């Protein structure tokens, strides 16, 4: 590519066209045809769109007390090794054990970033590093996170972690480093390849099937069908965040 071509490709969109090839570019440029309408499911060479909204279903009746396969799968997938300092070590997903204060009934469930439609972390972030992708996945752009931790103050689920020390041996697909905030990415690198998040896969491999990943907007999809039949409890529903992670009962 010549230098002039490079300098022309300044805007994201134009860059996209040069990559997607002449035919698609022509189509997209044709009057009345919008890019979003051309987008198809989980393809990693086109921008994600709001045609999908990725979410999780947690069937707490199938979640086994004492099982933490989802947690170790997450730690393995993203290289969250920990420094044996529980107060500052990162946890993207954790098992919470609940006991009903009245009946004494016990519950065990996984808790992670709820990928809100109205995420408080995104609202408060001064630089826009906390953002919500078009397909609903809430992420931190670690290139522009300044490490102010205001998002951690705002998150109702205590779902985020600040990296308190220098790290080494990071995974190529999951960059993480000192001084910035991070949280569950819904395994965005897997989602973009059309795969399911590591926690869901591990839960399924263990035969528990307490976690179901899917597209909330796909009316024929498994997730939508489950939510048709079940209530689908939102955590902190009082805040009206419209979370993408729904629980069978809490």
């Amino acid at each position, binding site marked *: 590519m010549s230098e002039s071509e490079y300098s022309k490709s300044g805007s994201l969109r134009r860059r996209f066209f040069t990559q997607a090839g002449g035919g698609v570019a022509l189509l997209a440029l044709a009057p009345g045809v919008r890019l979003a309408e051309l987008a198809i499911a989980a393809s990693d060479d086109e*921008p994600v769109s709001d045609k999908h909204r990725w979410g999780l279903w947690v069937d707490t009746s199938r979640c086994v007390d004492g099982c933490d396969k989802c947690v170790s799968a997450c730690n393995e997938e993203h290289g969250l090794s920990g420094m044996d300092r529980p107060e500052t070590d990162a946890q993207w997903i954790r098992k919470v054990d609940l006991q009903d204060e009245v009946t004494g009934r016990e519950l065990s469930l996984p808790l992670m970033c709820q990928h809100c439609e109205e995420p408080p972390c995104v609202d408060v972030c001064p630089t826009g590093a906390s953002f919500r992708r078009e397909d609903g996945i809430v992420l931190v*752009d670690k290139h522009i996170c300044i490490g102010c931790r205001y998002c951690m103050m705002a998150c109702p689920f205590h779902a985020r972690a600040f990296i308190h020390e220098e790290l080494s041996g990071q995974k190529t697909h999951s960059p993480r480093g000192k001084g910035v905030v991070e949280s569950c990415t819904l395994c965005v690198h897997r989602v973009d390849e059309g795969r399911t998040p590591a926690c869901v896969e591990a839960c399924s491999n263990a035969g528990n099937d307490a976690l179901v990943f899917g597209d909330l907007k796909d009316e024929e999809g498994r997730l939508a069908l489950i939510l048709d039949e079940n209530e689908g409890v939102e955590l902190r529903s009082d805040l009206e965040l419209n979370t993408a992670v729904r629980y069978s009962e809490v």
Partner: protein
Amino acid sequence: MRRTAGKRLARGWIAGLLLGAATLCIPGVLFSDVAKPQIPSARGEQCVEPVEIMRRDHFDFMKHDRDTTVHEGVRSIKHSLAGCIDCHASRDTGGQFISINAEGQFCQTCHTYAAVKIDCFTCHAAVPATKVSQSP
């Protein structure tokens, strides 16, 4: 009285500027024979861009494509850091990959020469990804 003071002031400024300019030239004269960096050879046929363009603009390329990937989920990008590492990371005698930002390695050797700090590898892996078992 006032005018002479002004003249003296002006002369002072000019002398200062000349002296400053001369000082700026010192490193060029003294260190002009600093050895060019010895860049380790890469695998593969051809870089994604001509070498001359990559030398000057690689960060713009990577910064641009990183935003496309992080915010828009486009992963089939031409200029990815992982792509650089795949071709340019060297192995040690034991066959293990050496961090690309280690002294003398591809990224670091040039950045040492140019005295520019690399911020990528605080977060990003500095060796090629090892294929882990992938489920269907």
